[in-house]
């Protein structure tokens, strides 16, 4: 029994969906608002503006991939079709792996559904340190509630064995631990969120806001790379899109001219700054592409006596903030502890061993639990984040250096994670680090972690959360956009994605993007209709 495919039915009923790979002649498309990027920001903006009666054009560089193509539940296909650079995206020096989505729905199509409100200390810090207005705790509350209702965000308490390790370890140690709210409706508990939900249960933009925008007359164009925004006299006058071939990468040579009253950049914190840089928009205070925050992720690996099947069941449902705010927002680096799912392909990359070591570790995969720490970057001067640049062909490059402040956080995180895995009954634990070996006892692991050399290419570092680069601030000297996402120098350009965050969030950012975008897009809709 195949489930009905939302898009097959929708397109048959008259949705306007254009695959740019099929265009053979130049086109001009016009709308009230053109949105570049269809992830968390673009999806919510498209729905909000279309429901307000505005004519919306939603532009996506990736392809439209729907539940019909997720039915194989295959990791290789998912990387190839749903991830930036087929899963191989990394910082410019190759030291940090970047997991980011690239298809209609953006990263929401492949994320693990964790839906946290922006932590209160983060919102307070933005107001105090970054001159952000209108996004205080009380002001954001109705927007979080609205998006939680919209996307069926509910607490998930049926933890799989993998997530139970974190819960058990924290409880044994008396550490704070909580269940994670997830954006799912009728979840089958399969664990395949990261490969494209095969049953359309995850309320990603792909199945929620984008279909609703299409029902209200929006046009979706996919496999279209917006090369440049053209500007004159402080306004965007139009944009040029390059149609891509079937491979989703190579321009076919067909150009699409885009006209709109208002433009919204929503390509995420790597592609949005790159688009604005390519467009050579004014940047008098050199803020564009600066302060890219990534929640650097480090992990420890444990072999458990019981099977944990880290590939099956809701992938992420427990977390600990025990080490997140204990020194306030601006003390030594805080971190949130969570559990990732592990499929064989990504698992091999995380293990980063070879020969008999790799064989042994892979043969224990069903008993392997990883705990990860999301390090909260961007809250102090010693953690200024990275920088987005563009390569000769206009593609993005991300530089990110790790300061002594960050490395201190990495070492403390390794210690916390190893301690909790042993407390949960792990047989042996090691850090995801080239020089780390397994230890059978917490005391030995503790001593070994204290001595691990902390350098790039020795510690395995990942990021799945891209933030900043077009930071918001009421002060044009400190941000690219104001608190409503409006560009400080360009009148009819807004940014609505994770790149407006002045710091990292301190939790998985999807709900922060949804709520902030709902709030700012609602204000924009009022303005455009006014």
């Amino acid at each position, binding site marked *: 029994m195949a489930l009905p495919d939302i898009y097959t039915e929708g397109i048959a009923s008259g949705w306007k969906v254009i695959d740019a790979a099929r265009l053979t002649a130049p086109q001009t498309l016009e709308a009230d608002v053109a949105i570049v990027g269809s992830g968390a920001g673009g999806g919510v903006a498209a729905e909000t503006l279309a429901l307000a009666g505005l004519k919306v054009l939603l532009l996506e560089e990736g392809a439209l991939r729907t539940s019909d193509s997720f039915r194989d539940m295959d990791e290789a296909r998912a990387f190839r079709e749903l991830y930036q650079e087929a899963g191989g995206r990394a910082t410019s020096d190759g030291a940090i792996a970047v997991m980011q989505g690239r298809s209609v729905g953006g990263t929401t199509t492949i994320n693990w559904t964790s839906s946290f409100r922006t932590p209160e200390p983060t919102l307070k810090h933005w107001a105090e340190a970054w001159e952000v207005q209108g996004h205080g705790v009380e002001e954001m509350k109705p927007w979080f509630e609205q998006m939680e209702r919209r996307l069926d965000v509910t607490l998930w308490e049926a933890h799989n064995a993998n997530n139970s390790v974190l819960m058990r370890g924290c409880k044994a140690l008396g550490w704070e631990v909580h269940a994670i709210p997830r954006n799912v409706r009728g979840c089958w508990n399969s664990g395949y969120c990261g490969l494209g939900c*095969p049953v359309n249960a995850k309320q990603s933009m792909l199945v929620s806001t984008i279909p609703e925008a299409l029902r209200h007359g929006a046009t979706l164009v996919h496999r279209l790379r917006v090369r440049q925004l053209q500007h004159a006299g402080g306004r965007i006058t139009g944009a040029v899109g390059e149609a891509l071939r079937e491979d989703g990468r190579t321009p076919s040579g067909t150009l699409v001219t885009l006209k709109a009253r208002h433009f919204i950049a929503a390509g995420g914190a790597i592609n949005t700054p790159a688009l604005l840089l390519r467009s050579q928009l004014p940047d008098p205070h050199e803020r564009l592409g600066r302060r890219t925050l990534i929640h650097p992720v480090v992990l420890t690996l444990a072999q458990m006596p019981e099977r944990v099947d880290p590939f099956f069941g809701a992938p992420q449902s427990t977390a600990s903030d025990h080490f997140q705010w204990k020194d306030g927002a601006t003390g030594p680096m805080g971190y949130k502890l969570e559990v990732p799912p592990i499929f064989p392909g990504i698992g091999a990359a995380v293990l980063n061993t070879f020969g008999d070591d790799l064989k042994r570790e892979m043969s224990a995969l069903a008993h392997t639990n990883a705990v990860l720490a999301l390090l909260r970057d961007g809250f102090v001067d010693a953690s200024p984040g990275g920088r987005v640049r563009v390569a000769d062909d206009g593609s993005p490059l991300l530089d990110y250096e790790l300061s002594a402040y960050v490395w201190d956080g990495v070492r403390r995180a390794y210690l916390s994670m190893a301690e909790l895995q042993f407390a949960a009954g792990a047989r042996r634990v090691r850090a995801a680090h080239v020089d780390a070996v397994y230890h059978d006892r917490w005391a030995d692991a503790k001593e070994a972690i204290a001595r691990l050399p902390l350098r790039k290419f020795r510690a395995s570092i990942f990021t799945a959360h891209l933030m900043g680069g077009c930071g918001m601030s009421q002060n044009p000297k400190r941000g690219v956009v104001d608190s409503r996402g409006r560009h400080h120098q360009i009148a009819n350009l807004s940014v609505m994605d994770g790149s407006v965050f002045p710091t990292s969030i301190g939790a998985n950012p999807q709900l922060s993007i949804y709520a902030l975008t709902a709030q700012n897009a609602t204000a924009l809709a009022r303005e455009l209709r006014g």
Partner: protein
Amino acid sequence: MKPEPMRPSEAEALPRRDFLKVGLGFSLALTVAGTLPGCSGGAKTPVAGYAFLQPSDVELFSALAPAVAPELGAFDAARRKVALDALLRNVDGSCAALDLGSRNEVRKLLDLLAIGPLRYALTGVGAWNGAGVDKMQAFLARWRGSRFATLNAGGNVLVKLTASSFYLLPQSWPSTGYPGPLEYVFRAVN
């Protein structure tokens, strides 16, 4: 085996001058290579049917595959051929999908390893074809144990690319405990 820091005897076996230059970056080493007599950077076009990998790259990854994933070596000849071919296609697809910055870095690394004398100096392997598993593993351990971040980076890329490309294959799953797509869901949607 765990990568160990290079032992002094191994370090001395390598031409120190080239090694130091590589430590400063692959591009510099390539410049050096270009001035060496008899060096050529190999073919400049991908193997037919591939998007990225050139003939010397295919030789490299074919030699790396059983060194990184010993399970592959245990397959019988027919299965090994099928799995290796699929692995190489995964490597090829992964490299071809990279944006310009990373694609150029990988290209530089592979070009460097395609130059005979430099390859021998840097890896201790004369030719990929016929290089044994032990020799390939020694090369990986040496690079990853090196004090030069550039060699660490190169070693990590080769290991991760090869390992992931193998474990993405259904043929590898029986050795991992991953039974394949969760059955009740897979059945329901197919």
